[in-house]
């Protein structure tokens, strides 16, 4: 590492050679406004807002993508020339953007709006130049409103570079450029996995979740409906951000209280069905491993997790060869939904037709999953409406609830209890760890003492570990990948191994479509950088280790009761009917 001396606004500092001007400038206490820049993505230089003056250069330079490459560089971040250029560039961008901020879904958290405020835009020298374009509402999960698009390119970058999906791309050129799909195809008809990472990084209202708020309000206001709700693990460590709380603050109790105040008849918890998933998936894993040991056919190993619907659609499109490896378990959301209209309805004597099942998810793909035609094994749609964390936040605000000052309350029985294993589902590696905690004890019959399996935790894109389990003739070889780009890497390896040797080195693989796992889901609060995602994950591990009585799914009393009263045994007949599903190949081109 070579250190060089440079001057920023006449302040001399020493910085590492090769870092970007933007990072060097931040060290001096000055701020450079940015628009297209996103800290987890490669700078694209698209917007032209972060320009600064570099002494000796004929034109201004972009701070985001100009490296500090020589000693004695002199940089000026706020000269008249710089400020006027930035304003003019922003005025051009604003001239190509409608002014319907007051009705826009991003009103109040729009990065373009914030920048206009920051740069003190009070007039625009340019008349509006934008062209009306049709909204794309073909997807269950996402709405694309191209007229709002400022062509920063973040959505395309995340779809291609991070997620390896390549559903969207820059189409056309010049002023007609759109971030779009081929042949004016709708997102709903495309290879889009609905992961929603595009909506998470969009600085404006050009791609956003397809909202179900009004449908849920209607159900809540309908006295004939019995409206129940479940909340995914990742919600409790993120919803606070919508109200100024730090990422990773555990707000499970406040979250339950808020939902009761919204008027839900029962407030359950998806963490309950996460524990249930472990019982089903863990049993499936054990059975498959045992079967392999007997018949020597290793082709159905590794078992690959199935909780992430973005991943499932990706798999059906890009890795249909692995369909038989993916666990047949429905996701916790769908397991919950199927039980709500059967087990719960029977138990409480409620007509399942009257039940409106709502879920609060960190995920836009869950909206698609809930609408998969096969997801109605109870005879009714398992889950009626899916709300993202962002929609949930908006509903709390609309109800005038001051979230941070709420008191805590528990979720309702008989589908509200959860263990630490259920809660860590929301972080990458969490499903793996939860499954290992239970699998270890079920296979060995011994108590797992060191419950924190830190070898599968972390933010590394792909993590591998070998877990020795008593009574198993070999250590369990596991892998964890988050973000579809990382999933692609590990699954290409698995596919090649199976193709070549008839078996893979892995026994169990956890895949989460979104970077960071569900805490980094496409429906989470804006500003979800990798750093924020990691902090949310830490919140979940904190709840697991410090705040809950049980930390292993098979110790969940309500889950035990469910098997005793209704399901029988894990992977039993009733489970297979209600809690398991099938996948099908999808066309890639």
């Amino acid at each position, binding site marked *: 590492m070579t250190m060089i001396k440079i001057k920023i606004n006449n302040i001399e500092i020493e910085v590492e050679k090769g870092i970007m001007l933007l990072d060097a400038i931040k060290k001096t206490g000055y701020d450079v406004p940015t628009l297209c820049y996103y800290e987890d993505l490669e700078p694209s230089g698209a917007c032209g807002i972060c320009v600064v003056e570099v002494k000796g250069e004929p034109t201004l330079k972009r701070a985001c993508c100009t490296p500090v490459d020589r000693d004695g560089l002199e940089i000026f971040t706020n000269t008249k020339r710089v400020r006027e250029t930035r304003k003019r560039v922003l005025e051009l961008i604003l001239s190509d953007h409608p002014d319907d901020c007051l009705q826009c879904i991003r009103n109040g958290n729009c990065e373009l709006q914030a920048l206009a405020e920051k740069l003190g835009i009070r007039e625009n020298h340019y008349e509006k130049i934008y062209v009306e374009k049709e909204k794309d509402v073909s997807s269950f999960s996402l709405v694309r409103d191209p007229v709002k698009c400022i062509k920063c390119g973040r959505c395309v970058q995340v779809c291609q570079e991070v997620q390896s999906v390549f559903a969207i791309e820059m189409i056309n050129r010049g*002023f007609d450029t759109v971030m779009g799909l*081929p042949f004016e195809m709708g997102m709903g008809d495309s290879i889009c996995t609905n992961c929603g990472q595009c909506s998470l990084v969009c600085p404006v209202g050009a791609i956003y979740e397809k909202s179900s708020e009004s449908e849920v309000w209607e159900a809540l206001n309908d006295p004939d409906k019995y409206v129940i709700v479940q909340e995914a693990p990742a919600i409790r460590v993120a919803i606070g951000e919508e109200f100024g709380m730090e990422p990773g603050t555990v707000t499970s109790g406040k979250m339950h209280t808020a939902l009761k105040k919204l008027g839900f008849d029962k407030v359950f918890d998806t963490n309950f069905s996460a524990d249930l998933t472990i019982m089903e998936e863990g049993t499936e894993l054990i059975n498959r491993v045992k079967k392999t040991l007997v018949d020597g056919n290793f082709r159905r190993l590794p078992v690959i997790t199935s909780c992430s619907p973005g991943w499932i659609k990706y798999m059906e499109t890009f890795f249909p060869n692995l369909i038989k490896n993916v666990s047949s378990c429905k996701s916790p959301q769908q397991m919950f939904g199927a039980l709500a209209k059967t087990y719960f309805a029977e138990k409480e004597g409620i007509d399942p037709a009257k039940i409106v099942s709502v879920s609060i998810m960190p995920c836009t793909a869950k909206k698609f999953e809930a609408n998969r035609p096969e997801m109605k094994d109870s005879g009714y749609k398992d889950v009626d409406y899916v709300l993202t964390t962002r929609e949930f936040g908006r509903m709390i605000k609309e109800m005038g609830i001051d979230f941070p000052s709420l008191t805590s309350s528990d979720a309702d029985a008989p589908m509200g209890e959860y263990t630490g294993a259920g809660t860590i589902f929301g972080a990458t590696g969490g499903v793996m760890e939860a499954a290992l905690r239970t699998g270890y004890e079920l296979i060995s019959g011994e108590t797992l003492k060191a419950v924190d399996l830190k070898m599968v935790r972390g933010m590394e894109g792909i993590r591998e570990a070998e877990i020795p389990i008593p009574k198993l003739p070999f250590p369990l070889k596991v892998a964890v990948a988050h973000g579809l780009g990382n999933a692609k890497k590990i699954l290409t390896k698995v596919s090649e191994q199976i193709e070549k040797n008839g078996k893979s080195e892995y026994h169990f693989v956890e895949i989460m479509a979104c970077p960071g796992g569900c805490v980094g889901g496409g429906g989470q609060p804006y500003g979800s950088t990798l750093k924020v995602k990691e902090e949310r994950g830490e919140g979940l591990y904190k709840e697991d280790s410090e705040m809950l009585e049980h930390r292993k799914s098979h110790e969940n009393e309500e889950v035990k009761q469910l098997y005793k009263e209704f399901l029988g045994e894990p992977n039993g007949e009733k489970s297979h009917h209600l809690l398991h599903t099938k996948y099908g190949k999808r066309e890639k081109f």
Partner: protein
Amino acid sequence: MITEILEKYEAKRENLISILHDIQNADPQHYLSQDNIKRVTKFLNISLSEIFGVISFYTMFSTEPRGKYVIKICRSTVCHINGACNIIKKIKEKLGINVGETTKDGLWTLEEVECLGLCGMAPSMMINNNVYGNLTNEKIDSIFKEVKNGRYKNESYLGDKLLKREKQTLNVLENIGVIDPLNIDENMEKNGYKALEKAIKEMTPETVLEEVKRSGLKGRGGAGFPTGLKWSFTAPLKGEKYILCNADEGEPGTFKDRPLLEGDPHKVIEGILLAGYAIGASKGYIYIRGEYENAIGIIKKAIAQAQKKGLLGKNILGSDFSYEIDVKIGAGSYVVGEETAQIESLEGKRGNSRIKPPFPGTKGIHQIPTVVNNVETLANVPNIILKGADWFKGFGTERSSGTKIFVISGKAKNTGLVEVPFGITLRELIFDFAGGVRNDKKFKGALVGGAAGVFISEDLLDEKISYENFISKGLSFGSGAVKVLDEDVDIVDLLTNIMEFFTNESCGQCSPCRIGNKTILRLIKTGKWELIKQTAETMKEASLCALGQSPILPISTALKYFKEELVK
């Protein structure tokens, strides 16, 4: 049909544009059908969105069925001031269709395109791959009849277009019109490949590079960067290296590389070889714009001839030096003349420019160090090596050595090429070589250096053209295009045409250029020149590549020299 086409290619992304051309050319309706696109997607294993992103970027590709004859009529500056509008109107009336439409009988499609490099015969057009120039309403009638009767006629415009040949200093263009370009022996009789032989047998790569450095040769594509210096950044790098010959001549009013490619392809090939030898490259690429169909064919044949003679391939002339040259084709985009955009395009992608640094010299094609030089620059190298740097420095001025090809077009009496040493004046070029203004009209000024060029008024006619003098006066001669304007040319109309050009050709990736060009185009009608200038200045400061940085040049010089006409 498509199976046969795909079989010809390796399944590599960099073949994408060539594959698409082949499919489109083979289709009777000259377009890319969805089914065919999907086949290519599968063949190359890339996503449908990516391939569509590429197709929608380049103007030569169409996803809509087109007629049997696709008319591409040039609308750029030179053709524009020579009455392209009237020709377009004539064709529209004749066929009963608008631009972008196809006649009901499926025979004709009419498209407007930017500069075809046929400015010496403006107004001009292409019908499928054949070129037609000096169009008049009467000529249109006869061309259409000929074409319809199956009698294609490709109009050549070489040789005779060297203005006052005997007065020129022909170093680069020496063989144009003299030799048969498709006969390598004729080139070799004129000292062709002698420089290569000398370099390989008598010189080290270092001494070749040193000679080019000492010659003072500067890039002839427009930027004027010292060629030897550029090479010296890449030469010391270890591992694989490439030369990329930029033959994407798209600057309106520029048609100097095309005659070289078509008239003396071996000189260009020899230049690419010498550059490769000097920097230790193993491969050269020539990126030729897709509209230059004739040049593409000639260069490909010439490469095959050189291979046969052992001048390309393994162990050239019995030495350790092995080298191959690959031809890559564009598909209708001006911005891919910019080196990083060209590399993207060559890799089979949209022609979006890359962020610099890293420069191509360290990370170029497929991230491999690549030296990018213009055709004319490389064609200068054989003589420099054969005759020496001192010989080369004997031409031109102190800091602008050698000769330069100037391209005279517009309202000049005679249009064509002039190769002369630096230090010449515009007056000599326009009034001596080109015979002054056509039809005895009054000289109004000149647009020098393409769309990204500057307006020059009469009082600058005696300025000596050299890098040092022009830079010190805030002028630029760019690629050497000189578009002569007579008293009838309306500067506002011409600026509008230039801004339409930039608007059509902006890649769209950075906001200052994407929105700025269109905004200026709109503002011209309002006459808000102060705002227009400020906008162009903002674009210069904040655009990612040279395209967005260019409009300030014609705008500020038009305001300087023709202010009364603009500000009414």
